């Protein structure tokens, strides 16, 4: 088993599949009255969050607690971090406390890679800058597999601000590893240069959402921050929504079986219409539930739980 999960590129198909299969076993637990497993009893998991992200932190916390680990939440607010302590010193502190795993969310791309130099325990990337968010990709893959029964050969459109999206990077890497065919869709300003060469040669690029929808099994909408407007990535929220928002008429262009995903938090009315977000085709709430199972699987496998 790998030691750290810093990037979806750390996972080969076999390891990724093992995580998804383990997550399925973990999910079976959540139906039981007592949801706890003793697997990580006596182990310490630190949630080191430099960015506010209640949903991801709670998800990791629930995952670690259901495995009986001791959980320490270390958030940038109200800790020595806000007093300017360096990542290295924080890492050495966590090391001295005996952290077996550190789950890190950070606004700087690559912070988990740096952290891994300074702690002996496992490092799990819970989102770093505009780089990656590998457990999000795992829970997305898990959700697709649960809904559609497979990943191999699946056609997945990832739509929106791919340039700034850590979710997109991790999904392209992981889904391609697992045999899916990924198309990234968005205005050319928000599709990174050389995306295929950078992530996977099989990645396709389209600037035309309407052309991609009829041939998609999965349409994953990314959050688009309206601040991007100020930086001339697109002229207005209205124009963005008109060209790249998933509304009801576009939903009807998708095949009957196709699902709609969104990593959250959503801008309802911007990249996704409320009717679409709340439709039975949407997996958004399921994704959250699956997140706990997938993160349990990641922690269990990285820490060699028994």
């Amino acid at each position, binding site marked *: 088993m790998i030691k750290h999960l810093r990037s979806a590129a750390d996972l080969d198909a076999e390891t990724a599949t093992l995580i998804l299969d383990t997550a399925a076993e973990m999910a079976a637990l959540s139906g039981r009255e007592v949801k706890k497993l003793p697997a990580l009893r006596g182990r310490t998991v630190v949630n080191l969050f430099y960015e506010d992200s209640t949903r991801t932190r709670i998800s990791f916390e629930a995952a670690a607690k259901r495995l009986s680990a001791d959980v320490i939440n270390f958030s940038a607010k109200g800790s020595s971090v806000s007093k300017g302590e*360096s*990542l*290295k010193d924080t890492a050495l502190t966590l090391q001295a406390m005996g952290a077996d795993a550190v789950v890190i969310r*950070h606004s*700087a*791309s*690559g*912070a988990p*890679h*740096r952290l891994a130099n300074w702690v002996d325990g496992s490092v799990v990337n819970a989102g*770093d*800058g*505009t*780089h*990656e968010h590998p457990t999000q990709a795992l829970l997305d893959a898990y959700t697709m597999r649960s809904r559609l029964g497979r990943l191999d050969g699946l056609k997945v459109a990832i739509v929106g601000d791919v340039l700034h999206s*850590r979710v997109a*990077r991790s999904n392209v890497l992981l889904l391609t590893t697992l045999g899916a065919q990924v198309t990234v869709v968005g205005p050319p300003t928000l599709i*990174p*240069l*050389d*995306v295929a*060469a*950078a*992530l996977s040669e099989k990645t396709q690029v389209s600037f035309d959402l309407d052309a991609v929808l009829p041939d998609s099994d999965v349409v994953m909408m990314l959050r688009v921050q309206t601040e991007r407007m100020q930086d001339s990535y697109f002229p207005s929220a209205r124009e963005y929504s008109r060209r790249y928002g998933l509304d009801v008429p576009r939903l009807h262009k998708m095949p009957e079986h196709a699902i709609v995903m969104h990593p959250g938090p959503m801008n309802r009315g911007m990249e996704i219409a409320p009717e679409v977000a709340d439709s039975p085709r949407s997996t958004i709430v399921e994704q959250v539930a699956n997140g706990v199972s997938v993160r349990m699987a990641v922690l269990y496998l990285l820490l060699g739980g028994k």
Partner: protein
Amino acid sequence: MAYLLKGVSILGAAPTDLHISDGVISAEPAGQDAEVIDASGLVALPGLVDVHTHLREPGREDAETVETGSRAAALGGYTAVCAMANTSPVADTAGVVEQVWRLGREAGLVDVQPIGAVTVGLAGKQMAELGAMASSAAGVRIFSDDGFCVADPKLMRRALEYVKAFDGVIAQHAEEPRLTEGAQMHEGEVSTRLGLTGWPAVAEEAIIARDVLLAEHVGSRLHVCHVSTAGSVEVLRQAKARGVRVTAEVTPHHLLLTDELASGYDPVFKVNPPLRTRKDVEALRQALLDGVIDVVATDHAPHAVQDKECEWSYARPGMLGLETALPIVLSVFGPKWELIADRMSIAPARIAGLDSHGGDLTRAGTPANLTLVDPAARWVVDPAELASRSRNTPYAGHTLPGRIVATFLRGEATVLDGKAVK
């Protein structure tokens, strides 16, 4: 002190004896008092001249001082370095440039020639008192806002024109700031994979294209700092063919390293302009061979440990260069001594107006600014062993060819047996 360098090879020529006395190359043996150095197997080069060094003093003496930087320079075979203006306070007045110049004299290991800021506080708004710096004791000839681009085209035009009065040159850090907001590394495949904001090649090329046109229009000299892209080389090639008075430098790291090194997010590889692609490296090497790029300059940029031992995005850009420049150039081009002497000593001395450097070692009367290299030696770069006060070398653990055995500044040894004399 007089020296006799026995059996030395001047620029790779047949072994000969080289006499140094009274600060110059002498045709006559100096007599019994001369210290004899067995220089068989060693190559003599005119002392290297760096037109782009950051010595950090005043302001960041925890990263480097004029003295420690001078020692690193001497050990790297340099006899003159041009100290960039982005100190604290900024070297934008006669007072600050004279202070740096004086500290250099006190250290006495290399000639420290201060570069003056083009604009007050490097802010890019108002021209600094360039004339006062030129006529100060430091005799400033190169002006640069390095670290920042003189982005305002009108201000750049005026600066290019103004320095003609005292044969000055503007050394431009070519970076269109609007195209590099938040930039962390070369924009391309690797930046996309790493999720780091890209520094597009065009941000450099667009400024160089503009500046060569401005220099042509006003008939001024322009020097381009740390050229890093294949596209910049083409712009320069065309400008030179048209007769524009432009010179350009390339750093050793841009001649060797590529953006792939960012993959581990170790900020020791973070530098501005950023490491580029293999294609750029190849174009820069060819440009140096062709003379489209005139000189190798180190952009020696010491940084304190805490400014590098952090997240990539928070780290300061820059790498050490003085002690590894010649070995890197040797490793890239092999023992092309004429080329090395020109690009690392003669041409930079000419650009900087340092008449006593880059001289002809075969001629009696040439100021004895020279360095002796053992081309057969191999050494492993250990950051802790470097003379610089900082440790941010990108070559830690690399085995490099060529070791500096001795360096002479105006006939006095600054380095002997590979060690600084003070």
